[in-house]
């Protein structure tokens, strides 16, 4: 009799759904009422908050900015993290474990400390600017604080460790013999990379990108600290709406839109990936 291993997934799925729904339903419900200030909400159901979100450029621009920054971080993190993960996975030296341990340890450092480190490095009198100005490469100090570029750097610093760890695990599962076989048959390294390594690690690349993307969509600290009050991503707007203005219903609406958009982007990516996989299977 064939073992039905997929049944093992059901308890964890139910638990995840319970935790997600129980915490979000009350919040979502609140988004359909009117704000009466000071944390109080009305009693009549309304979609006024959603209409406002999708007709007000403040919220729409913030949504677009959040998606754009998160996508940029996902792409750049992948571009930098994949080679690192590949080299670590293929290293025969014992140093690979040391380097991997260093990456894991770095992932444990709280984001606030990481961001403060970046602020020190990128300040006018910081290490980087002193080096660049001192060497004559720059006339005056360059700063990315208070700019979307700075927030991208902060988010990459936050997510890089996770990305490398995830990709390391994926690449480790690809037998080295496949690369060697391709090389024996005359494929140059670039072709081996593009035709063997990338296709085989594609599911892992997609999952890693989505995890990084999701982390960035909800990230508050980097945008708040490095953004210098000028980069209004949705999490920053949520914090202002809930804490500053105590407009819980509007805060819930912005959160609901953020969650829905993130889920839709994830679902779409998985759908495209599944179709791509099916087509590749048919071609093979």
């Amino acid at each position, binding site marked *: 009799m064939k073992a039905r291993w997929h049944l093992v997934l059901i308890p964890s799925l139910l638990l995840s759904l319970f935790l997600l729904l129980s915490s979000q339903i009350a919040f979502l419900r609140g988004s359909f009422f009117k704000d009466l*200030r*000071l*944390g109080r909400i009305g009693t009549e159901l309304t979609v006024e908050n959603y209409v406002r979100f999708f007709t007000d*450029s*403040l919220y729409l*621009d*913030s949504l677009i*900015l959040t998606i754009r920054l998160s996508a940029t971080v996902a792409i750049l993190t992948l571009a930098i993290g994949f080679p690192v993960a590949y080299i670590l996975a293929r290293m025969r030296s014992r140093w690979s474990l040391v380097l991997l341990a260093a990456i894991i340890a770095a992932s444990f450092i709280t984001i606030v400390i990481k961001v403060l480190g970046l602020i020190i490095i990128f*300040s*006018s*009198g*910081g290490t980087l600017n002193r080096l660049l100005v001192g060497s004559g490469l720059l006339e005056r100090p360059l*700063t990315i*604080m*208070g*700019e*979307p570029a700075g927030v991208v750097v902060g988010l990459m610093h936050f997510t890089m460790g996770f990305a490398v760890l995830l990709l390391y695990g994926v690449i480790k599962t690809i037998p080295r013999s496949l690369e060697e076989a391709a090389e024996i048959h005359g494929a140059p390294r670039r072709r081996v990379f593009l035709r063997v390594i990338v296709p085989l690690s594609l599911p892992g690349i997609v999952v890693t990108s989505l995890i990084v993307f999701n982390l960035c969509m909800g990230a508050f600290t980097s945008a*708040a600290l490095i*953004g*210098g*009050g*000028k*980069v*209004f991503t949705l999490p920053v*707007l949520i914090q*202002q709406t*809930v*804490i*500053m*203005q*105590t*407009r*819980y219903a509007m805060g819930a609406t912005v959160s609901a839109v953020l969650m829905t958009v993130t889920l839709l982007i994830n679902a779409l990516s998985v759908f495209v990936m599944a179709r791509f996989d099916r087509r590749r299977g048919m071609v093979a």
Partner: protein
Amino acid sequence: MTNLDRRQVLTGMTATGIGLVAAPRFATAQQPRFDGVTLRVATFGGGWDRAVHKYAGVKLEALGAKVEYVTAPPRDNLAKLIAAKGRPAPFDVVEMGDLTWVDTYEAGFLQKIDLANVPNRKDLLPSQSDEWKVASWVTQEGIVYNAEKFAANGIPKPERYRDLLNPKLAGKLCLIDITQAGASQLLVGASIDEGGSMTNIEPALKFVKDANPFQFWKVGAQAVTLMNSGDIWASTMHAGFAVQMRRAGLPVAFSHPKVGPTKRGLLKEGWLGVVKGSPVPRAAEFFINEYVSAETQFGLATERGVVPVNGQARAKLAGDPLLKEMFLLSDADVGNMVSVDFNVFNLDDATQRWARAVSTR
């Protein structure tokens, strides 16, 4: 001179002895004891909590209580009260900014203070205490600037907010963030000075946008660090920060900006209240009384650079040359400063318009 016999002398000595032994005990008996009581105080972080404890908290702890501090800006503490509605209060004493006080009161989070337990309010102005709140400090909002950098770069002393638009200050300026209490004073001051008002803040938003600051600071220490590193040469802050920076050796000066044709400088007030449902109101009132005492007020002024609400402490301050330089202390000067009327100024609306004005895309 009356001659005393031996019995009278002995009686007198015995009575004096009993008096000497009993007097301190009697005096102590007048002080309430707070053994086993824990008082939770919501106040500012960044060292303010430690300074408050050093002067006021220790007095309560000397009587057996334990004082714990919940540190956050006033709006965050109001959000905690809202979130805890229907459940026990998360703290007993709350320190509020002038706007937060209005919201905290209107939302019904405060309980009446028994003013008989706050005798030190005799040194406060009558308007600075009532049964719902007691004033805790005053700050004077304006412009802190690095006098050496200004002089070296030929930048004149800023007299008005618009002077910060000097091209030589491009990238060297910080402004207070809208999430911070002093932002209302900046918006109102810059608006009135440019022909607007507390209801028409468009000129101030244009000023904020044109200034394009290096950062909007969310914690005072952030601007202090940037000033220290040389990243910025000026910031809108309260005069207390200028005092702290000068004491730390930074060559800063403070300007009380002119507001319109006659006014100069902007005031911000802090208030203390007892949270509704506090199980320890007597300890809360004792703490508030110590907070507004001349000793605490003078200590907070010299250490943290706020202007005391206690008249005795204010009079004593005039003897400190640095504080005299940074603060406007005379009644005439204080009377000529601008206070924000939060029944007129709409911070919710200002917050949203601010985000539209300064957002980087």
